[in-house]
């Protein structure tokens, strides 16, 4: 026994060391896990579970960037569909605002502007988080845009599915998207002149619909359901027989915008120049001409066209609170490139 005493002591010390190490490691792990950012999606003690909202995508539609527009029959149109997740954006911003108010509440409590009990209550409120639920759409095999269709209604009628020939330009790069608080995805569709010529004159409301049916081959975690955009109100006027100079300017600018989306720069320039010829004060026509010239390598022509656009801006909006930063930056950039040639 006496002989084994040192062994017992060493063994005891070893056991103690192992236990101590185990306890320390556990404590350390616990501490680390506390400091880890919590996943907002799952229930945490401070989550606003009672106010939790299911994920829901938003779909937006613009026609030629407008939500209300008038156009002539036969003028090509660009339909832009954008998807986002405004519920997630709301939750994310709300969480950020709450977090940022903590210091303010603590300051007010320290200054005695609010009582300790009230500060405690406010801090508890500020530490709550609203779950940010992402929305998944599409898969590598089935792009999200395949679940988009358009509906229209004439005055007093009900919405019906549109059979217009709309082509994505270009096809969206991402076939599947995860819409969180910031992410969004969009696709442009072109309605070419011949298809636009088949639209009947009159007022019409158009909506974009995202409709993902139950089941199917999409992954299980994809969102399913139907959401519709706000309606775009479009008035289609008969093509003018003898268009005025102003109408010619408008029509050609619309054409230039259309070709710009298609990146058909020669046609952008031709249409923009026709618009300028009809109405030289159209600032955006000069900008479109400049865009085309720059892409096609005519840097001086582009610089001059942007310069003319800026001159018109200064003339037409002498008291504008915002300056034409886009034009100023373009001109500076082109000046520099011209100097370095």
């Amino acid at each position: 026994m006496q002989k084994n005493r040192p062994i017992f002591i060493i063994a005891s010390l070893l056991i103690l060391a192992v236990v101590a190490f185990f306890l320390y490691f556990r404590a350390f792990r616990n501490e680390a896990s506390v400091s880890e950012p919590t996943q907002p999606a799952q229930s945490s003690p401070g989550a606003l579970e009672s106010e939790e909202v299911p994920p829901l995508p938003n779909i937006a539609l613009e026609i030629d960037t407008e939500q209300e527009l008038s156009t002539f029959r036969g003028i090509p149109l660009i339909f832009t569909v954008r998807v986002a997740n405004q519920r997630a954006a709301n939750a994310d911003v709300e969480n950020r605002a709450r977090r940022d108010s903590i210091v303010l509440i603590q300051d007010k409590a320290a200054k005695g502007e609010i009582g300790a009990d009230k500060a405690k209550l406010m801090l508890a409120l500020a530490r709550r988080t609203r779950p940010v639920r992402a929305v998944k759409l599409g898969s590598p095999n089935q792009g999200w845009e395949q679940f988009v269709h358009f509906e229209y209604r004439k005055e007093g009628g009900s919405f019906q599915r549109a059979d217009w020939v709309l082509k994505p330009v270009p096809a969206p790069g991402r076939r599947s998207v995860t819409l969180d608080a910031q992410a969004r995805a969009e696709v442009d569709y072109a309605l070419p002149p011949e298809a636009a010529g088949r639209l009947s004159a009159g007022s019409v409301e158009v909506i974009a619909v995202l409709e993902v049916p139950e089941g199917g081959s999409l992954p299980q975690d994809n969102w399913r359901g139907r959401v519709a955009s706000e309606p775009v109100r479009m008035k289609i006027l008969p093509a003018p027989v003898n268009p005025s100079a102003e109408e010619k300017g408008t029509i050609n600018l619309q054409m230039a915008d259309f070709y710009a989306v298609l990146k058909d720069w020669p046609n952008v320039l031709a249409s923009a120049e026709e618009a300028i010829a009809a109405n030289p004060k159209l600032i955006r026509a000069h900008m479109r001409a400049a865009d085309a010239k720059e892409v096609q390598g005519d840097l001086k022509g582009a610089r001059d066209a942007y310069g003319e656009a800026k001159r018109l801006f200064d003339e037409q909006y002498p008291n504008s609170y915002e300056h034409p930063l886009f034009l100023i930056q373009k001109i500076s950039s082109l000046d520099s490139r011209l100097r370095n040639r």
Partner: protein
Amino acid sequence: MTHNVTCLLSRIFICVTALVCVAAPIAQTQSGSRAPIDWKGTVNIVESRHSEGKNRNDIYVKHSAKREITCTFDPSVNVDGTCSLSDFGRLESDRGWLEDTTEASNAHAHIKAEVSAGKVSIGISGFTAIHKLTTDLGGATDTVGVGPFSFQAPATSESGSWSDGKGTTITWNLSPVYGSEPPPAQEKEPEDKPSELEAAFQAEGYDDWVPEAGEDEAQPGNTLTIRARVYKHNEPAEQSPKKARFRFELSGVSHEKGVCMNWPQLVKGGRDLKIDPTRNLELDVARDGMSATSKELSYDAFLVVTSYDWGGWGTLMVTAYPEGHETVSAHLEGNKSKYELAIPKDEDGNHIADSWEDTNVLGTAIADADDDFAPVGDEHQGDGLSTYEEYRGFRVQGQHIRTEPFQKDLFIWDPSDLGLGYFDDSRITTRLVKADEFDLQSGAPNPRVINFNRGYASAGAQHLLYLKNEKLEGDYGSAAGTGPGVPKTCHTVLIDRSRCLEKDEQELLTTIAHELAHGCNVEHHGDNYKIKEWQSLENDRKTWSNWRPDPRGKAADVAAQGGEESGVEQCIMRYDAATFYENANGSFRWKRPDGTLQRGDEYGFAEASGNIFCDDKKGTGVNAPMGYRRVSKAGDATKGICRRQFCVNDRMH
């Protein structure tokens, strides 16, 4: 901006708020001394208006219009009426290109009659009609009509008329409706003693109950169950020797418009707490849902009160009619001095549920206070929404939320899904809403009101910001309105998404935040100036050239010291481009607005777009001392400290 030179819309918002006070002798009618619980009949408004003014293209226009609106009161929906427009007159104009395309579906009024002791009050609000004027020269926004106004009507009958002498005539014809009958009074039996019986009631989960609503005013929300019973006087544990019928009466029930502050639109209105017959099968429920009597004699009875509003309130009283005994007023269980039950529990009588106060305010809330303090911003407290409005809550993206009374809220409509960019750095709680979650009301230049169902304890109309994608004419974005101001002054926040993205994604995020900040009263860092001509050093920097007009526009923009490009380089509100900047050793020179000569250089490439709202005026980055080619490009900001400029409260500024 006339780039879209086709049919644009012009809207005329006619908002008339009228208050008719008819001192009608309601106490003495064909039903003896009973007070009417409801009214039926019609209210008719005829308005003829003439208006003239300029549209946004400075074209002078005149309008004349005659409108008529009739409101029918249906007793089954209590005291609120539905209205429809008829005979809308055609607008006339001195311009041939105006075309009236009035949409009757967009025209509405909300007329509410209230019965109180000795008089009837008829309130007419939200008399709104939208006209679409077709013009190839741009839309006009014009306001026709005046309001609010009030008047005292003849004090003799429930029919009458009133005119403001300016074209508005209101006529009304209302008659009273009476509610359910209480049980017949019992003959008092000689052997009974008045003190033999006692009645009491209590509500399940009363302390924590907060009203909730359904999808709209017709859909039920949550419920509160009340049990009433009779027992031997002073012996609550002893069964009563007699059974009784119980009568439950709701009084002082609120009828706020809609179910919450912004949902739904175009509503009839109705009482916010009701006794629903389908949930009270053992009771005879009055048509108006305000009273009910048990069908059978029993020792106890249950009442289910249904909520139809997220901020409703009322008071319940219970009376027992024991068999062969005089009536007994029920008191609250355990409190013999309390014969009324406030629904929800509301000890301070501010119509805000105590349980919400306990978890959000701690103590008594002042219903019409607006003292949100986070973030500090320009130190104006509040977000334009009263404590009661924050409690009653809002519909946001299809879901109801109650907002917090200390966090400033800003509502935004973003139908283009542009997103908020870097605006979250403002630390304001922004809430993106849908098109049917705000209303077009009076209050030009921004007609978009978020708390359009306001009534009790309102701080006034609060507007949202409309974020819109737009093809602009040279700028990345613009807050269209009267310059930086609170949301009511900002008509539309315009963003040219595709032009921003031509630069980079960061420019889009910055521009959105920059323009939204203008809608919250945040200004640029300072002011620049423009020059029409300049000279440059030539011959190896020995001589100045002749004066030259700027070839890049009508005027060149100079980034002045303390101007728009000054201050913290990464601030969202700072401009990052100009034609020239001031530099005492520069190779250009020009005359400042005060006539003095100023040397400088070309501004060159723009800096990266900002991503924060600054806390300081001090120039950083290119604006730091020696920060750019051994000088400060634009120096310290004149204004700056952008984070302390935010104000979302429409009542300020």
